């Protein structure tokens, strides 16, 4: 537990974490100081004036809570008539030139102006003069569409491009009530994190071209998830909805704060990987090249495995820890050569020094901990003799191998997404993807994270673990895998897999060392 200090809020003593500004300090004990421009990742700017509070110690009568560090013994007043009136007044100023087009605004339902109007204002409009008009539906590039009239000039987006991406595409031009956020002519948003400005925008001024007008925010179920777009494992919200007579569909990913992994943001490429969960999914099982029902396909593959002379299992570096362990167990049981060869998942030089990683797989770190061989030589040597290759989600074509030209080796594919490798398979078992399944992954920094199933499809696909059990694997469920990992894999001897903290568990250096040694 970090150091704490005691201060008084509205005459009640509270103990809060030390070293924070007043907004964050008292938020930690559940007290809200309303604020629009302040964001913990972007620092205090002090422009919205919504967080003005009184401090009863003889300093100037009003201070901006975002700019004021919480200090021992401070007496903060939030509930005085004076402060309540200021909050009403600021809301009035924010709203007089706001179009109040909530019925057609994507932000409606998750808008700070709506929420604060109900909480802190609730007064009828006194605006009897014409409103200021500004630019609408301006294409800022990077998939961002801007509405200057809805904007409250909090400058979060501007500060994001200056402080976080350091690309500085956005600025506020003009003065007074003509001030507006804009790009330089012909210089659109051009960074790989641009869509974060949509999440940062407290109102509907920044909208995503991809998402706008597709769903009302209040219909979306906002489930926690982890992005599988690269080996960073950024925490996300999976926003999905099952419309009447339709299936459960994911409409967007949004960043979810995790100080241990991604902070407050995600990259645009990762954000767009939600589409892979909806489109080009494997649905139809195959057995010996024929479409059959799932049960027949599983049984046919099981028979084919038992007939095989030389068997190779190929595992994807994006499989979950539990899936990998279960595949490993089945491989041992069936005397199959197990390979994790997946060179093609690594795009050298694509990563940056922020969130984006070269390695586009989600869980390669687990290969090392489980001792799964990744070398090309092992795989090619095994394939020379093999008569059956079962790929568990691994698209070998990414690594430059032609799946239709494996010679005498027959190909089976157990996975979620259509790809060249799945196309070439004569046995095909579609399984639930990560958004429909639970599991654990270890990111490039050695942080073990757990995720749960977010989406339940109308016709749910079986999990890969269920398929592995049906193919003759030993594990009935994840509990069984965890027990096995705890007892049989040295790296997990001391890891309490039942209780992985919400922010993930940083595996210690010694655990990683133990394996490589």
């Amino acid at each position: 537990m970090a150091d704490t200090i005691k201060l008084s809020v509205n005459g009640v003593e509270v103990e809060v974490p030390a070293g924070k500004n007043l907004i964050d300090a008292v938020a930690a004990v559940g007290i809200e100081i309303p604020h629009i421009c302040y964001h913990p990742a972007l620092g205090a700017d002090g422009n919205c004036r919504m967080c003005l509070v009184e401090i009863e110690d003889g300093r100037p009568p009003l201070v901006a809570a975002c700019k004021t560090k919480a200090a021992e013994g401070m007496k903060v007043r939030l509930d005085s008539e004076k402060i309540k009136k200021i909050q009403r007044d600021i809301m009035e100023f924010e709203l007089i030139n706001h179009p109040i087009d909530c019925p057609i605004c994507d932000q409606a339902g998750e808008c700070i102006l709506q929420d604060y109007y109900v909480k802190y204002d609730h007064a009828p409009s006194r605006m009897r003069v014409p409103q200021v008009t500004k630019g609408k539906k301006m294409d800022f590039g990077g998939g961002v569409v801007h509405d200057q009239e809805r904007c409250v000039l909090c400058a979060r987006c501007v500060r994001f491009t200056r402080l976080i991406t350091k690309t500085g595409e956005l600025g506020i031009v003009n003065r007074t009530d003509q001030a507006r956020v804009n790009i330089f002519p012909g210089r659109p948003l051009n960074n790989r994190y641009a869509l974060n400005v949509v999440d940062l925008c407290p109102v509907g001024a920044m909208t995503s071209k991809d998402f706008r007008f597709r769903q009302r925010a209040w219909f979306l179920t906002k489930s926690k998830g982890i992005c599988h777009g690269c080996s960073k494992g950024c925490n996300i919200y999976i926003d999905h909805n099952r419309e009447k007579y339709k299936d459960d569909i994911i409409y967007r990913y949004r960043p979810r704060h995790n100080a241990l992994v991604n902070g407050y943001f995600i990259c645009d490429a990762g954000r767009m990987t939600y589409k892979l969960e909806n489109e080009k999914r494997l649905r139809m099982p195959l057995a010996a090249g024929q479409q059959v029902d799932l049960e027949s396909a599983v049984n046919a593959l099981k028979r084919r495995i038992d007939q095989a002379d030389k068997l190779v299992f190929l595992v994807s570096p994006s499989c979950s820890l539990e899936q990998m362990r279960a595949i490993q167990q089945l491989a041992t049981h069936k005397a199959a050569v197990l390979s994790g060869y997946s060179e093609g998942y690594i795009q050298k030089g694509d990563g940056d020094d922020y969130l984006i990683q070269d390695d586009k797989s989600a869980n390669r770190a687990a290969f090392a901990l489980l001792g799964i061989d990744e070398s090309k030589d092992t795989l090619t040597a095994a394939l020379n003799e093999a008569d059956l290759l079962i790929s568990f989600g691994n698209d070998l074509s990414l690594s430059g191998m032609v799946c239709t030209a494996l010679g005498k080796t027959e190909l089976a594919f157990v996975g979620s997404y259509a790809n060249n490798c799945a196309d070439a398979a004569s046995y095909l078992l579609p399984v639930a993807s990560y958004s429909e399944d639970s599991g654990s992954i270890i990111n490039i920094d050695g942080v073990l994270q757990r995720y749960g199933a977010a989406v339940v499809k109308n016709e749910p696909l079986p999990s890969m673990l269920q398929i592995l059990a049906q193919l003759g694997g030993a594990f009935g469920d994840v509990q069984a895998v965890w027990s096995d990992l705890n007892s049989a894999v040295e790296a997990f001897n001391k890891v309490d897999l039942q209780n992985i903290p919400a922010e993930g568990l940083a595996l210690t250096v010694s655990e990683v060392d133990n394996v490589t040694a």
Partner: protein
Amino acid sequence: MEVKILSARFDIADANKLEVAKEHGAYGTLEKLFAMEPAEVTEVVKASGLRGRGGAGFPTGLKWTFLPKGLDKPVYLAVNSDESEPATFKDRYILVRDPHMLIEGIIICCYAINSHDAYIYIRGEYISQAKILQAAIDEAYAAGYLGDKVAGHDFRVDVTVHRGAGAYICGEETALLESIEGKKGQPRSKPPFPAVEGLYGCPTIINNVQSIASLPFIIEKGADAYKAYGTEKSPGTHLFGISGLVKKPGMYELPLGLPLVEVIDKVAGGVRDGRKLKGIIPGGSSTPVLTADEAQSVTLDYESMAAHKTMFGSGGIVVLDDTVDIVKLAENLVHFYYHESCGQCTPCREGLGWMLKILGAIIAGKGKAKDIDLLLELCDNIEMKTVCVLSAACTMSLRSYLNKFRSEFEAYVANTASAQPVM
């Protein structure tokens, strides 16, 4: 009533040229200066009672003592020559007629605060003034008064003229610093104050042109000589710009403490055309207006102005006679502050435009009686809720017009106002 302290060389032809200025005493204090300890200089300035001539009237010497001690960062001096307050036209005389007095003052100040780099932030509209100032600086460099060894002494002073781009807000000292740094001129939240964290994150003293230009006299003649002018709490002389509906508008140097109405009558020739005095804006457009009655007992010093619930301000006195339409004057004034709001913080950005539109509606005969009270409430709702005091400059003065001349607003609302031109 007029005195010639700051304006001693104003009427000498070509006094902006170094040769002429030197002949009449320019840079004459430097030998004395470098024989003093920097702390002594500060003490003399403190003792003189010199108050900041930009409008706020903060004691200049005291401001210098706010610099943190024992810091290994450079100290900067920023000379505020943004002179943008409506009705204020005093610093331009110094820039044009006696720039060497300003440069000498800069050397004095830099020595006192141990700064080697001074910036003169001059408003963008002062084009010829900037040229004359730069020419004087160039001459001072050539003659060795600026540069690595000021007048042969082991003390460096470099002066940079930074031209603004036409923004009233850049006269606010932290917006001025932002502008020098090449950013959009927007005030910073305080604290930290510039004396602790100013230009480029370093301790910075910001003084008005007239404050700095007052230093050579104070150092040469001593604090007591300066205090011989003015009142106890408002010592010294001030360049007053008297404008509006008087017979002899102009810039006059006067000791502080003179009766306001007497100055209007005797110095500026009184209200023109024998009209009746209606009111006086005492120190630039930001200062609350005085009615003719109130003006009778006011003297031109900080304490009398405060006692009359207005401010001394920048010495820009505007005389209003009975032809002035106060409602249109108020609209004109609000339009200025509206136009000059940097747009950074919510109450000022949104509120001033709203007030301006309400005033426009009142003038167009579309106002309602409750609009006058709404304006008064908006003044309260905006004032002191903002990052800087630009909006307060607007609301304090607007409130004074609304309260002191309410019947004129009511007449518009009742649609009976006579059509009178705004001055």
